[in-house]
């Protein structure tokens, strides 16, 4: 009886340890740091050639889309300051909802010398259209 319970316990423990180990190792390996443009500009050299994410808004008038070379370039601006980071995104479709002032989430490799990210992933959300509008109108409602 006792031996059987020990076996069951050991089997569960091995499974658990293996799973935890796998998850932690993968987290360590794949996790990428997250910055605002201001944070990244302030710590540029430490993050040179690193894979990272930047979250900000598309700087007004900064985007150019070169259809012939399938290339999108723009600057992502900090929500609270005027710091910007340049972004280049090639051979992928320009995402829907890509408008000046809209929220953008950039993932890619950072080059400190050029203050530029070569993006592998772009996610956009049209801030004015989504819940932002809802929360402003709710302020009206609760007053």
């Amino acid at each position: 009886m006792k031996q059987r319970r020990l076996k069951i316990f050991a089997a569960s423990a091995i499974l658990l340890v293996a799973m935890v180990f796998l998850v932690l190792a993968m987290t360590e390996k794949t996790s990428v740091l997250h910055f605002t443009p201001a944070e990244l500009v302030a710590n540029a050299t430490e993050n040179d050639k690193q894979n990272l994410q930047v979250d900000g808004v598309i700087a007004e008038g900064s985007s150019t889309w070169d259809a012939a070379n399938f290339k999108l370039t723009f600057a992502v601006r900090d929500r609270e300051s005027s710091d910007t980071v340049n972004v280049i995104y090639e051979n992928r479709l320009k995402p829907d909802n890509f408008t000046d002032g809209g929220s953008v989430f950039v993932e890619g490799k950072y080059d400190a010398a050029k203050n530029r990210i070569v993006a592998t992933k772009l996610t956009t959300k049209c801030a004015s259209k989504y819940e932002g509008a809802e929360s402003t109108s709710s302020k009206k409602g609760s007053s």
Partner: protein
Amino acid sequence: MFIEDLLVGVQGVTAELGQAAIFLSLLSALWAIFSLCIGLINRRLNFVRSGRNAVIATLILISIATCALIFGFVTDDFSMMYVVEVSSAAQPLLYKITALWGHMSGSLLFWLWLLTVAGGVVVLQNRRSQDSLADYALIPIAIVQLFFIVLVTGWIEGVYNPLARFPDGQIAVDGKGLNPLLQTPSMAFHPPTLYIGWISLTVPFAFAVAALLSGRIGSDWILRSRRWMLFSWIILTIGITLGGHWAYQELGWGGYWAWDPVENASFMPWLLGTAYLHSVMIQEKRSMLKLWNILLITLAFQFTLIGTFITRSGIITSVHAFAQSDMGGYFLGFILLSTLGVIALIVYRWERLRSENRLESLLSRESSFILNNWLLVGLTLIILWGTLWPIISEAIQGEKASVPESFFNQVVIIPGLILLFLTGAGPVISWKKITPNNFKRMFIPPIIVGLIATGIAWIYLAVRGILEIPNQLESSFFARLPEGLTFSGETFPIFSLLCVFASVFVLFAIGSEFYRGAKLRTKRQQTTFLNGLGLLINRNKRRYGGYIVHIGIVIVYIGIMGSKGYFLLESASLKLGESMGVGSYQLTMQDTFQEEHQNYFRAGVEFGVMKDGNQKTTMRPARHFYHKAGQGDQDTIESAIYGIGMNELYIALGPLPAKIDNDTDVNVQVYYNPLIRVVWIGVAIMVLGGLIAIAERSESTKSS
């Protein structure tokens, strides 16, 4: 004229009527809780009846509020804030109605309405029953209702009452319109499907609480809520798939699953529900795992709330720039309080939650089910970990970080493959303890067939020259070993081959179960084999429906292996008349087109698709321009899809000018997605199996 005046007159009161109904429902839900408690504690049947009636009253009141909002949509009542937010005069009727769940306030009301429907159905199902278990279950249901009623009253900062008008009495000229991305049929039905799935999960949870409250911890509560659970599971399966299908068709990235927090939020309750569907069988057959089942269904229910919390509170997707609402804290509070409540009840009923039997062997059906549960719960926790990593990393490292799609792909694959193997091993392994005879008869043949199939797959991959995996993207699902585990620096599709082995093993093992059973019936009843198969399934719908679900799962795995592991992607910038290739297909941009539609403008290009010099078909990818009033200035990708057997060719276009001429550069992204149709077929088989299983009436209703 008269009708118009009447309409304006009615519009003038509907919103207020709906608001009044919401406030009244606050009272009816409170009364339901109070009077059911009194009635059940003191055994006063008239109080119990009054409680049931109050649950029905809540249903009627919330239905009135929901109808009032829909009326506002249909009649374009732009004095209502929510209508302005998500609807517009030009919006087609279907999307005016689906705008109900287009935003937070409305979707909460819709959620609440479904919850009151669930409450009403529980009352009606049990109105003639002498048994009080369902009455106990109404108490937690009413408490959850109360929580959502408070949410839609507009008392919580940041969540306004969906029926509220603009406070200064202003009337907007037109609404802002529903996000164009949501104006497709699968997006119209995806959210409500998920909601229905989540809400029907509340009922088994409520029965678990009822079991604790009443002290009847046996299998009654499981049997009484079995069909609810299956229903929830089927609907969630459909809902999750619709979401993937929507992403595939609309978003233009050629995939259907990206481990996005919103997707994860829908997937986690499904995993826990699947675990629960298995573990309750052990409680029924062997009176074990009583405590575990209650914990599992509680967790599954809590995850439906956690999902909403994650996706709505803005703590995760930092892409949302919206102002913080108090809703997140309110949700978290409710999750914590209700969990504490269940824990308190468990402590109170501790003695009755003891297992009556013990696990006898590590190699038995019981332990295969327990392993299944471990893995499913483990997967849920892994996905939760990855989803919450931005918060966790900030808490422990002080730096905000997140994990990409490849994290999820790589950590789920091993547990996922073990689970796949179990879908075949579980049904054929014997209860209590495996015997040499059982192993020889049930395991050896499928293992041999599986190994042969694996060998064939290996040769096929080698001949096709795709042992080293083609796709260049970060998704290494099934195709590659995790980095650092490669053989002599080369990639090797070990996971693909393991997936083939496990799939064939399961198909053969379950197929033999069907074959043996059907043969026996055929002999006994002197009938045809097909008839025998029908009889077999009909006599034990639960068991064989379950097996059919397992077959569906295997087929989904095969589809995922092909489409996630072996897709091809090519991008190019083309002018009219130019061509590009993907795999063995040649695509030529041969024409352009423009069409005017009710609320958008469609522009695109036509591709001729050639293979080996033969024209196969034409494909017409496009973009939709929503430039009408209230639609904002948006255009959306409308991909074109062409099926080749089980594989698909998929074209999406980059930004286009409204007028395309000979010099326009068009950005084209083409995917070749092998076996992608197999995924949808597999899901259809899963749903079919679920429907067969749910057709079986539960034993308790049979015997009564």
